[in-house]
Structures are given as structure tokens and as C-alpha cells.
């Protein structure tokens, strides 16, 4: 049975997303996010080479510049200036969230089995790539659910967006260039604004712990 | 063959009844009991039971007691076949060791226990268990069940002056009443469905038998100590005298699980609801039991929680056997059943050994608290040696019997996963393997704590410093059980043949079990022992004149005191910290002194763990029941007129109901 390289990369990226959940150290989370993005860049480039759609090279390049280089550096800088290193986490300790994410990985496999097949490819190839992308989604969601630091919420949101992008790539033979560009600019803007907002939250409240947002009620 | 077996069993029972009647009479008249007589009678009875088991293994014999003995609605019928004789054999071996151990142990407790009562209750307890294993219909079963329950409650409260024992006996009595209630309900329902009291007529494969099966499972699980009904076990087993704890933990739990096998597996239960419920209960007891065993300071509580873990493991095997039966995989189901029975036997042996060892410590060091023991290795060397063998067996280390049965369980789980009936079932088997791995790591932690804090190091109390070795019969009892552990470990493939008839009776095409066991256990035992001996002889022992004895490394501060050692709580602290939500763990520390930070003068640490079920569910229920009881008190105002009024009202109501229906 033939398994192409980009399913392998998709699964590896999903595994890295799951492993990202196991750490409470912000630097490690950002490094693992960077690894995911590099893998996705490689996958996009390979997709472009295999399916002879040159505009995907441009998408890969944009991904590389924006999310493999710019965003991690930006978030690293913010983390250093906000002086956060460890995320206290929610009620569930970090390793258990990682195990939960593995279970959701299995669930995404079963979801992937029941998806309708696109025309060009067949069988386990599609299931493997669907598994990878849906589990990115779940990992991002679990990260947003179980972390208290606003920085971790952003990383979770970015992982979620990775999952959506991978799903679009594998299930639909690629979206048009314009749509991808629009999505990228949106994400870039969102991250920049979130970064600026985190500064002002830190200045007003002395912390960026989102579980204490309910103090705003009084 | 049948006549010999019947004769042996009846002779044993009669002998014990006569002896216990004599004991009762002597106790009533206040005469002093010489321990030698009842102990010899028990020993002889144990031997005849063992012979009966060996003869009974080859036959399948059902007999009813003759005419004068009749239990109101059904005859007293007994069924001796391969399955019952395995359990009778286990009972016999434990009875033999208890008979050797009891006289020496009772010397230590003689001023607190009425000896005559103890022996009478012990005989009745053992007769009850024997009758229960042999019971072939529901009424016989219930009669002997009650006999076991009541005699063991009395045994738990042997030491009436001890408040803990009284509370434990009360809780145990309540639990066993509830268990009997569930069992009776289930049996009555089955009787009305199958129109017969006899177990061989009860078939559980119809849909209508679902609820009676659940009732019977709950009743038996309460007695076996399965979560969530395990709460009575850590009270009752430690409070009883050590030989009785050995019997209760080693055999009584197994007898309940034997009843489960006899009724449900032989009766052909296939319902997935019941079997998955049993599997879930078994898995949770497995983890919960050993988790709580880790944090106990009392040696016998530690062993009692460990019994919960092993009872859960046996229940997991039984439920997987039923599941395999339901999905039409009888060869793997037979393996699970064989593993369950084998683990019953092995656990009975090594748990009794451990309880007898704990009893020996209690006898000599006058305490069971691990924080006050230590340094007993030089004082009780043989007891320690047998305790180490028992602990190695319970941690399933090769080449002992714990490893043999655990290996069989792992192999059955792997074969179930390998068959790929469905991905869910294979995933479930692999998760069971993972949970079993975690639990075996935890039991290693638990028993190294028990041996390390209890026997090794320096004595932590005055009594531990002045302990001496126990008497020869007590050592002989432990030696017998230790030899059985080693023998069953080394000859495990041959034991598979012993369990073959029982598995063939339950599952139609059971494989030849002795072919399943592919590890040459005897080879490993010889290899480990031989290589160790060689290495020891050649390299280490030839330089006794080059060995200098000195104090333990103390960083040059001078010799360490007895307080500068690990405590039981400290040794297990890693687990209490990591699993603190499960323990409702709280640790409060207070440091006092003129300059607290740099020169503390007084440090107090208070740690507490609270059982979740007992405090959050059972205690509120008990409080509600008490409250209702107090409200009901209002109904008994003490006035005769009120009572006559009640009678009149009931009469009127009954007449109205009688007219209407």
C-alpha cells in the first residue's frame, strides 16, 4: 500500500501537537509549535511539487515567513517581556491533558474513517491525513480549555488553525491562492492584536491569567 | 472413589463438630483449654480434607444428606467435582498452617481472648467454608453462608476489650447482612424463574435472569471486597486475630469468588451488561486497592487493601471469561477461567503466609504499626525470610507462584488482543495490560515498604528492640506455605493440568492448558539459584577477613539514631503527593522556635488521608438512616393505646386489601 510522504508529515505534526500539551513551560510550547509549522511548510511544498500547482510554493513561502519565523519570534519576545515562563495550568495536570489528547487522536481516526472520500485519492491515505488534521483541531481545543495563560491560549488557537488548514489541504486538493492569503493576513492581524492586548492586560492587572477574568464581574 | 471422598469429608466434619461441642462445654464450665488438643484435631481434619480434595478431583459426585437432615424446603446436597476440590485443597492447606500457628499466637493473646470461644468459632467458620464450597443448592448455600458470616464476626471481635475490634465487627456485621439480603433476593428470584433450588438447574443465558444475576453479583462482591463495597474489609481483616485474618483474606474471599464462578460461569451467563459491569468494578478495585495499600501504616491494613486489589484482579479474569463466552471464543475464555482459579489458589497461599508473618510480628513486637517496627531482621530471621518470599510472590516475581498466575493472566489478555474480534476489545485488553503493569509496580513499592520499614534498618521502638523469634510450630506453619508458594511457582505447567477438568466443564472446546505454558519455570529457578550461589561462593565469601564492619554512611556526623530513618509515611509520600486528589490528602506543618527560619526547635507535621467513598457516600447514608431511625422513634410513644390503635389500623387495611384483590 502506498503511503505518500505528506500523510507521514501530517501525522508527525499531529503527534508533535499532542506532545506540546504535555509541557507547562512556555518556551517548550513555542518551540514545538515552531516544529509543527516547519513540518506543515514541508508538506505544503511537497504538495506543490507532487500536484504541480505552483501557487502552493507561494503559500509555503508565506507560511514559512509568517508563521515559522515571525510569529514564534514575536511570541518569544512577548513572553520574555511579560516575564512568564511557566503556565500554572487548570484543574487537570498537564500530563493528563496529553493523555486526553491521545484519546481524541483515536477519536479523530474514527471520524476520519466516516468522511466522504474525495475523488482523486482513496482509502487509508485520506483517513491518515484527516486523522492528522482533526487531531490538530482537538489538541488546539484541549490546549485552550486547560491552560490559564493568555499566551497558551494563542498557541492553542494557532494549532487549531493549523488543523483547519491541513484539513482543507488534504480533503479538497487545495484552496485558491486568494483565500489562503486572506486567511493568513487575518491570522497575522489576530496575533499582533492579541500580543498588544496582552501587554495592556498585564499592565492593568499584573498578570495574564484568564481564569481570573471573572473578577471583572464585580 | 466416591465413597472414600464422602467418608473423608463427613468424618472431618463430624470430628470438628464433636471437638467444638467439647470446647463449648469446657468453656461454659470455665475450665482451662489445652491448645494442643483442638490444634491436633484441626491439623488431622486438614489432612483428611486434603486427601478428600485429591480423591475428589477425579470424580463428579452429587449427594444429598440422608433423611433426618433436611433444610425445610430442600435437602442438604453437596457437589464434589474438580472445581470444588481445588478450593477444598486450598482451604485444607491454609487450615493446616492455621492449626500449627494458632496455639503459639493465642499464648500472646491469652489474657484477652476466651480460648474456648475462639476454637469453637474457628471450627464453625471452617465447617461453614467447607459446606459452602460443596453446596449444590441455594438453601444449603445460604445456611453455610450465614454460618460463615456469624462465626467470622464473632472471631473478629474475639478481643472484646479492644474498641477498634468492636467497631470493625459491627461494620462487618452490617456489610454481611446486606450481602445476605442481596443474595437471598437473587436466589429467590432464580427459584421462581427456574422452579428449582439446585444450582445445576439454573441457567443464566436467558434475558429474564439478568436482574437476579446482578443481585447475586452484588451480594457476592460485597463479601469478596470489591469496590465500591470494599469499605468493611480494611476494618475487619486487621482487627481479627492473625490466623483468622489469614483464613478470611486467604480463603473466604476466594470462596465468594468461587461461588461466582460456580453460579455464573458454569451457569452460562452471557449478558454483556453484567460482565462489563463486573469488569469495570474489578478494574477499579484493582487500582484503588493497591493505591490505598501504599499509604497504610498498619501492616495488616496494608495486607487487607492488597486483598481488595487481588480480589479485583480475579473478578477481572472471571468477567473476561464470561465476555469471551458471550462472543464465542471459548478457548480464550477457558484460559481466563484457568487464570482466575490459579490466582485464587496462589493468592490464598501467599496472602495467608503474609498474614501469619504479620501475626508473628504482632506476637513478639506487640504492635502492627510500621512506624514502631524495624530492625526485626536479626531478631526474627526466619519470619523475615518467609515474609520476603511471600512479598516476592505477591509482587509476581519469578520464579514464585504469583508470577505464574500473573503470567497466565497477561498471556490471556494478549491472546484476546491478538484475536482482533473488534478493535475496541483489543484496545480494552491492551489497556488492561497497562493497568496491570501499573498495579504491579505499585505492589512492588508497597511491599518493599512493608519489608524495608518493618524488618530492615534499626528498631524504632523499645518493643521492637526486644523481640525474639517465634516458636517452632508457628515457623513450621509459615514454612509450609512458603514451600507451597515456591512449588506452585516452579511446577506451574503441571498445575495447568489440574485445572483442565474445571475449564472443560465450563467451556466446551477448551485447549490443552499445559501446552499454553511455554516458560520452563524450573529452568529459571535453577538458573537463578545456581548462578547466585556460584557467584556468592566464588567471589564474595572468600574474603570474610577483608570485610570491615562499620556504621552506615552518616556524612561523618557520628552514628545515626533510630529516628534518622525513613518512616512508612515518608516512604510512600511520593504517591500521596502525586495522587493527592484521590486521597483527599492534607498535610499541615508547624515549625516553632525562637528563630523559626534558621534554628527551628520544634517541627510538627500532620498528614491525613480520607477515604472518598466512606466519607462522601457511606457516612451521609448512615447519617440519613440514623436520622430516619430517630424520627421513627416517635412512633413508639410507649402508650398501649397507641399500639392497639396501630393493630386496629393494620387489621382494617389488610381486610380492605383482601376484599379488593
Amino acid at each position, binding site marked *: 500500500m502506498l503511503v505518500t510522504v505528506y500523510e507521514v508529515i501530517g501525522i508527525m505534526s499531529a503527534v508533535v501537537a499532542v506532545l506540546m500539551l504535555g509541557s507547562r513551560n512556555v518556551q517548550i510550547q513555542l518551540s514545538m509549535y515552531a516544529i509543527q509549522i516547519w513540518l506543515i511548510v514541508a508538506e505544503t511544498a511537497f504538495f506543490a511539487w507532487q500536484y504541480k500547482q505552483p501557487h502552493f510554493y507561494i503559500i509555503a513561502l508565506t507560511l514559512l515567513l509568517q508563521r515559522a519565523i515571525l510569529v514564534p519570534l514575536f511570541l518569544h519576545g512577548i513572553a520574555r517581556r511579560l516575564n512568564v515562563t511557566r503556565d500554572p495550568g487548570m484543574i487537570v495536570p498537564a500530563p493528563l491533558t496529553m493523555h486526553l489528547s491521545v484519546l481524541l487522536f483515536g477519536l479523530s481516526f474514527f471520524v476520519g474513517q466516516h468522511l466522504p472520500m474525495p475523488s482523486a485519492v482513496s482509502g487509508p491515505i485520506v483517513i491518515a491525513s484527516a486523522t492528522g488534521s482533526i487531531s490538530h483541531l482537538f489538541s488546539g481545543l484541549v490546549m485552550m480549555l486547560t491552560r490559564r495563560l493568555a499566551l497558551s491560549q494563542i498557541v492553542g488557537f494557532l494549532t487549531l488553525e493549523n488543523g483547519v488548514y491541513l484539513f482543507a489541504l488534504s480533503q479538497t486538493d487545495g484552496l485558491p491562492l486568494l483565500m489562503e492569503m486572506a486567511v493568513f493576513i487575518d491570522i497575522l492581524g489576530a496575533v499582533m492584536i492579541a500580543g498588544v492586548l496582552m501587554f495592556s492586560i498585564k499592565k492593568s492587572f499584573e498578570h495574564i491569567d484568564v481564569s481570573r477574568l471573572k473578577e471583572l464581574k464585580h | 472413589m466416591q465413597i472414600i471422598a464422602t467418608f473423608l469429608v463427613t468424618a472431618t466434619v463430624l470430628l470438628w463438630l464433636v471437638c467444638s461441642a467439647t470446647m463449648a462445654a469446657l468453656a461454659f464450665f470455665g475450665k482451662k483449654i489445652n491448645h494442643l488438643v483442638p490444634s491436633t484435631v484441626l491439623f488431622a481434619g486438614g489432612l483428611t480434607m486434603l486427601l478428600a480434595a485429591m480423591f475428589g478431583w477425579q470424580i463428579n459426585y452429587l449427594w444429598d444428606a440422608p433423611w433426618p437432615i433436611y433444610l425445610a424446603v430442600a435437602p442438604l446436597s453437596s457437589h464434589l467435582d474438580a472445581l470444588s476440590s481445588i478450593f477444598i485443597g486450598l482451604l485444607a492447606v491454609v487450615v493446616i498452617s492455621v492449626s500449627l500457628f494458632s496455639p503459639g499466637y493465642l499464648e500472646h493473646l491469652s489474657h484477652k481472648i476466651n480460648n474456648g470461644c475462639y476454637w469453637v468459632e474457628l471450627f464453625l467458620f471452617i465447617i461453614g467454608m467447607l459446606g459452602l464450597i460443596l453446596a449444590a443448592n441455594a438453601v444449603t448455600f445460604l445456611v453455610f453462608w450465614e454460618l460463615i458470616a456469624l462465626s467470622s464476626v464473632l472471631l473478629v471481635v474475639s478481643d472484646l476489650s479492644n474498641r477498634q475490634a468492636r467497631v470493625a465487627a459491627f461494620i462487618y456485621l452490617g456489610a454481611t447482612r446486606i450481602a445476605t439480603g442481596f443474595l437471598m433476593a437473587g436466589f429467590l428470584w432464580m427459584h421462581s424463574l427456574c422452579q428449582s433450588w439446585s444450582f445445576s438447574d439454573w441457567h443464566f443465558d436467558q434475558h429474564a435472569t439478568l436482574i437476579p444475576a446482578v443481585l447475586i453479583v452484588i451480594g457476592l462482591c460485597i463479601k469478596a471486597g470489591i469496590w465500591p463495597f470494599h469499605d468493611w474489609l480494611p476494618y475487619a481483616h486487621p482487627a481479627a486475630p492473625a490466623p483468622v485474618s489469614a483464613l478470611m483474606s486467604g480463603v473466604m474471599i476466594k470462596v465468594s469468588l468461587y461461588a461466582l464462578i460456580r453460579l455464573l460461569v458454569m451457569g452460562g451467563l452471557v449478558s454483556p451488561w453484567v460482565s462489563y459491569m463486573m469488569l469495570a468494578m474489578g478494574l477499579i478495585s484493582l487500582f484503588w486497592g493497591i493505591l490505598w495499600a501504599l499509604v497504610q501504616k498498619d501492616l495488616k491494613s496494608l495486607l487487607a487493601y492488597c486483598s481488595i486489589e487481588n480480589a479485583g484482579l480475579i473478578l477481572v479474569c472471571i468477567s473476561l471469561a464470561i465476555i469471551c463466552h458471550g462472543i464465542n471464543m471459548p478457548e480464550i475464555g477457558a484460559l481466563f477461567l484457568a487464570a482466575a482459579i490459579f490466582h485464587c489458589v496462589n493468592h490464598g497461599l501467599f496472602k495467608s503466609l503474609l498474614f501469619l508473618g504479620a501475626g508473628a510480628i504482632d506476637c513478639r513486637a506487640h504492635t502492627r504499626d510500621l512506624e514502631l517496627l524495624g*530492625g526485626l531482621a536479626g531478631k526474627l530471621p526466619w519470619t523475615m525470610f518467609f515474609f520476603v518470599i511471600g512479598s516476592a510472590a505477591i509482587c509476581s516475581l519469578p520464579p514464585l507462584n504469583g508470577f505464574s498466575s500473573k503470567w497466565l493472566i497477561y498471556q490471556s489478555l494478549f491472546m484476546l488482543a491478538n484475536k482482533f474480534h473488534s478493535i475496541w476489545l483489543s484496545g480494552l485488553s491492551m489497556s488492561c495490560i497497562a493497568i496491570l503493569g501499573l498495579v504491579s509496580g505499585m505492589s512492588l513499592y508497597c511491599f518493599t515498604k512493608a519489608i524495608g520499614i518493618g524488618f530492615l534498618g534499626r528498631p524504632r521502638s523499645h518493643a521492637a528492640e526486644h523481640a525474639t523469634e517465634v516458636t517452632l510450630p508457628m515457623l513450621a506453619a509459615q514454612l509450609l506455605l512458603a514451600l507451597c508458594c515456591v512449588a506452585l511457582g516452579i511446577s506451574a505447567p503441571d498445575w495447568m493440568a489440574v485445572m483442565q477438568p474445571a475449564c472443560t466443564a465450563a467451556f466446551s472446546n477448551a485447549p490443552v492448558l499445559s501446552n499454553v505454558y511455554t516458560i520452563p519455570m524450573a529452568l529459571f529457578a535453577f538458573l537463578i539459584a545456581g548462578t547466585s550461589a556460584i557467584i556468592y561462593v566464588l567471589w564474595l565469601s572468600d574474603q570474610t577477613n577483608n570485610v570491615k564492619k562499620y556504621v552506615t554512611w552518616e556524612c561523618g556526623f557520628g552514628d545515626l539514631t533510630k529516628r534518622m530513618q525513613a518512616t512508612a509515611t515518608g516512604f510512600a509520600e511520593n504517591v500521596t503527593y502525586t495522587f493527592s486528589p484521590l486521597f483527599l490528602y492534607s498535610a499541615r506543618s508547624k515549625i516553632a522556635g525562637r528563630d523559626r527560619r534558621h534554628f527551628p526547635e520544634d517541627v510538627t507535621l500532620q498528614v491525613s488521608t480520607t477515604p472518598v467513598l466512606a466519607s462522601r457516600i457511606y457516612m451521609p447514608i448512615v447519617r440519613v438512616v440514623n436520622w430516619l431511625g430517630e424520627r421513627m422513634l416517635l412512633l413508639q410513644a410507649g402508650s398501649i393505646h397507641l399500639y392497639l390503635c396501630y393493630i386496629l389500623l393494620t387489621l382494617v387495611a389488610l381486610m380492605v386489601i383482601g376484599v379488593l384483590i
Partner: protein
Amino acid sequence: MMAVGVYVLFFACVLLLPPCVIGVIRKGKALMQGRVGAPLSQPFFDLFKLLGKDQTVSQTTTWIFRSSCAMNLATTLIIAGIVPWLSFKPIFPGDDLFLLLYLLALCRFMTILSALDSGSPFGAFAASREAFLSMLVEPAMFISLGALALIAHSTSLHVVFDLSLPCSTYDVPVWLAAAAALFLGSIVDLSRMPIDDPTTHLELTMVHEAMIIENSGKNLALVEFTHFLRMAVVYGLISQCMMHAVGRLVEFNQLTAAIVSVVSILGMAVLTVWIESVFVKLRWRSTPEFIAYAMTMSFFATGGALIGDMYARHGL
């Protein structure tokens, strides 16, 4: 003739390879720290020196302390006999997966008891730490090796690690995930960084060293050699997993497999050097988080094995 040669070579590896592995690790760490370091054969000299020294034994110890090192060496030799850690290892009977894991548990049992035997507080808390860590790592080891056994449909180790069995594409991620899980588990089992620093001199930070702190002379020589042998066997097992993962692309004939298996053990030693020099030791309360990574990789291995077998049965 060939068979006798294989046996001789195997026993030579059992005796000589473990001190080579530890020599490579120590030399490598020294070079990374900018020192020259001791020669590669220093562990051999250390063992011979220890064998000739007198022993100092604590007064509080019992027969457990005196017999545990002999028992551990015997058990580890049996483990080296049954685990297929070298491609050319002759097959001894009774190599079962679960027996291997419980023989490792037997070693641990005796080591923990001998640590508690002297009544030393250092030995006691090191023993409790070792028991705690190994308790958490057990499930990962069980199901990562169980996943490999599922692929081979047998729990017999020589069947699982047989290089001549066909390896389908679905099995490669399982071998890789199992290798990762076993590697992370081996860091805990062998007490390397970032769980435990083997070169520390502060007793409060020790896990493994404090357990063997009371041994001296011949006892210490046996204990050290047992530890080195265990390290070599575990690294050999992991390199066999990697060879299986690579085996889908490259065909190994017997001689190549033999040479690669020995060289890759030394390669694992170099990887250990890099990890020990780059990563810091974890805080004690963070070590369960590290073990969770091993658990996750073993979950992936088992899931991969189950899914792969599901596809194999449905003919995809």
C-alpha cells in the same frame, strides 16, 4: 563450528561491551565539556581495581544486602540471555516478553531492599524515588513492547525481533513510536539525565547512586557491572527497534546486521552523551511529566499496531 563461534562472540560481547559503552559515554561527556577525560578503557581498570579492594559493610545490614548484588548479576545475565539485543545473539528458551519485564522487577526489588537494609536515610528516600519512578514507567514499557508483540502475533521475544519477518508500511510508525517510548523509559530505568544525574555528589539529589551508596569493593564491582550490562541490553533493544523501522527501506544481511547492531549501541551511547550535556536535571516533582511523554508514545505505538492490524485484516 559457526554456532560455537557465535556463542563465543556473544559471551565476549556480554563481558566486554558494557564497559565500552560507559567508557564512550564518559569520554564523550568530557569532550563536550572541553576536557580530555579518562581513556575509553577506564571502566575496565575501575572494575579490576574495585575487585581487589577491601569491603566496608554496615553493621545494620543483613543477608539481603550481601546476597542482592549476586542475585542481581545472575538475573541480569539471564536477561542478557533472553533479550535479543544483538542481531547475532543465539536463542535461549523461555524468552517471553512478560518474563523479561518481571525479571527487571526482580532486580529492582532486590536493589530497593538492599538500599533499605542499611537503615540509611539516603538509601531509603532514593529507594522510594526509584520505586515511584519505575511504578509510573511500567505501563509504558508493558504496552510499547506489547504493541511490538501484537505486530508479530507472539510474546516470544526472538519472534518479535526477528529481522527476517516481513515488515509492512503500517509497522514502521509502530516501531518508531515504540523505540521512542522505550528510549524515554530507559532514561528513567537507567537513571540518566534529565531524571537523575549519575555524576552528582549531593545525596539529596541522587536516585540511583544513593541506592548503591553502601556498597564497596567486590560488591560495588558487581553492582556497577550489572548496571553497565543492563544499559547495554536496553540500548541494544532500542537499536533493534530502529533497525526494524529502517528495515522497510534497507535489507540487512546477517553480517551487516551484526555490525550495525553493535555500532548502533555505541551510537545510542553518543546520543546519551548529547542529551546529558544539553539538558538539565528535572525538579523532582516534574519527573512524572517526563514519564507522561513515554506513556504517550507507547499509546501511539499500541494504537498504530491495532489500526495496522485492522487494515491488514480488512485487506487494505
